[in-house]
């Protein structure tokens, strides 16, 4: 499989010295759904802006669809589709007109235009609303129209910046379906950014966790989760004095498949284990003769949340940008809610 994106030490330092992206290197294979996961302000959108030629990098290089993003910017633009997080559809035009405009921008041959517009409208299910002004659309419909705009020229590579930001759960699922459909039917490569763990988990073949401008780790979702090593058992004692509990804990620590037991508040404990769900009955049996009794016990696999916490040392958090960014974010949210 060939590489459709190759980034080498890509960096962006804004005037004023803010390192938005601090030398990231990665490659994306053709046909892959590749995700950048990180909190707001981590450098995801800046990276996308560089890869889509909207920003010039201050360091490093990248090739997109085989072309250099600075020296062959025009050809890169022809090859890629870009759907920003801004919901960038024109409210004063109809859905059809938005697509017609986009077809003009991408130099779609005159004879092809009607067919292409029909095709993308069909896909996002907006055919019967195409003649209506976009200002009458709901947030989810605007997003679908924006995605349709990004598909009109059948790009090999589609950039989706926070595709489900601010959408309700049902619409998010729909968008996920489109993304999977695009890969399956059109063999499209998709590069997406998100700060939703479940989204990265559900869609991506590989995920790069990015924080404060650099990639902390890059792997498949399963690989990322197993990189935390163990699976965990969470349990809580229902009765028994401190000595009884200590005795019981010593017994559990002595079990061959238990690597470690740590306290998790009150009478609750977390044990990292190596033999999967079988650990639960095993721990239960081991304590059969003890005075301390377990009240609740459950087995958990580490989630991407745990992975993120592990690699960045913190939870995904909100982070403020400039004033203009804040205004823009508010406008997007307001348009979404309609």
């Amino acid at each position, binding site marked *: 499989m060939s590489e459709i994106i190759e980034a080498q030490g890509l960096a962006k330092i804004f005037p004023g010295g803010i390192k938005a992206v601090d030398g990231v290197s990665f490659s994306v294979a053709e046909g892959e759904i590749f995700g950048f996961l990180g909190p707001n302000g981590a450098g995801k959108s800046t990276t996308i*802006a560089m890869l*889509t*030629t*909207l920003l010039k990098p201050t360091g490093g290089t990248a090739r997109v669809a085989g072309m250099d993003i600075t020296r062959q910017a*025009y050809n890169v*633009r*022809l090859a*890629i589709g*870009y759907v*920003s*997080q*801004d*919901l*960038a*559809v*024109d409210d*004063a*035009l109809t859905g059809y*007109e938005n697509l017609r*405009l*986009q077809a*003009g*921008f*991408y*130099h779609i041959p005159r004879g092809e235009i009607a067919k292409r517009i029909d095709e993308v409208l069909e896909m996002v299910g907006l055919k019967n609303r195409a003649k209506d*002004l976009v200002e009458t659309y709901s947030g989810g419909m605007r997003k679908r129209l924006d995605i349709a*705009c990004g598909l009109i020229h059948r790009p090999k590579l589609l950039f989706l910046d926070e595709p489900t930001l601010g959408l309700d759960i049902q619409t998010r699922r729909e968008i996920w379906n489109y993304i999977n459909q695009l890969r399956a039917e059109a063999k499209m490569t998709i590069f997406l950014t998100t700060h939703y763990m479940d989204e990265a988990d559900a869609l991506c073949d590989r995920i790069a966790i990015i924080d404060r401008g650099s990639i902390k780790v890059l792997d498949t979702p399963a690989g990322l989760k197993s990189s935390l090593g163990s699976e965990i058992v969470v349990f809580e004692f229902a009765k028994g004095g401190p000595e009884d509990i200590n005795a019981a804990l010593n017994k559990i620590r002595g079990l061959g498949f238990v690597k470690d037991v740590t306290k998790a508040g009150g009478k609750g404990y977390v044990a990292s284990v190596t033999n999967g769900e079988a650990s639960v009955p095993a721990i239960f049996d081991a304590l059969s003769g003890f005075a301390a009794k377990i009240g609740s016990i459950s087995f958990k696999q580490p989630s991407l949340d745990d992975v993120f916490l592990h690699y960045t040392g913190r939870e995904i958090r909100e982070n403020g940008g400039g004033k*203009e960014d804040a*205004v*823009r974010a508010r*406008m*997007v949210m307001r348009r979404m809610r309609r």
Partner: protein
Amino acid sequence: MIGVIVHDTYWVFWREMKKLVRQKSRIMMAVVQPVVWLVLMGNTMAGLTSNPVAAKMLGTGNYLDFMTPGVMVMTALFGGVFGGMSILWDRRLGFLNKMLAAPIHRAAIPVGKLAALTVQTVFQALLIMLIGLLLGVHISTGILGIGFLLAMVGLFGVIMGGVSLSLAAMLKSHEALMAIMNFFTMPLVFTSNAMFPTRAMPEWLRAIADANPLSYAVGPMRTVATRGWVWQEIWPGALVLVIIAVVTTSILVRQFHRSVA
């Protein structure tokens, strides 16, 4: 290459025109104010100017005839100064990035917007002209003269739109653009020959008025409207206007390239 630029510019222009047609009320409102000027001020001044001394200063016995070219250019000024807003809105709504990520020639975005702005300005000037004719304004050169008046207004619209769009590309803030443009519009009108004859002005003000780009537009228009094709009074102003328009448009394309793309 030229074909590509024209194609891309057309589509940027197409979008602006679609939006414009749906904002009929805004275009009409932009005409209401100048018409109010024309009706109120024109009629008030008519009482003051219907004497030989004033007629000599105005170059015509009818203040409405004198004022109409000035009001047309004033409308172009007021419309043009806020033309930059469309770039700022596109930036805020993310549409600017959408266009920049597309294979559009960089010059097509400002030039397409400027073209749409100019069409809007000329259309508004035409409405004022028609209302002026209904109010009894007389254009001595007839239909050809009206065509010339509209062409000059268009040229002035190109200049104001270019300045406003350049500032918008540079400033990146609605508030800053509004503040700067509001600061300049009224002084520009009153230090020009748009409302009052320069012959009635004190020496220092006349010097400013003679350098004011508004005067370069209004002067030839007034000559054509009230006195006919007096070429030696027409071509210097028209030429200066063409030169300024070329300069502001090149500045716009470069400024847009530097600040945005």
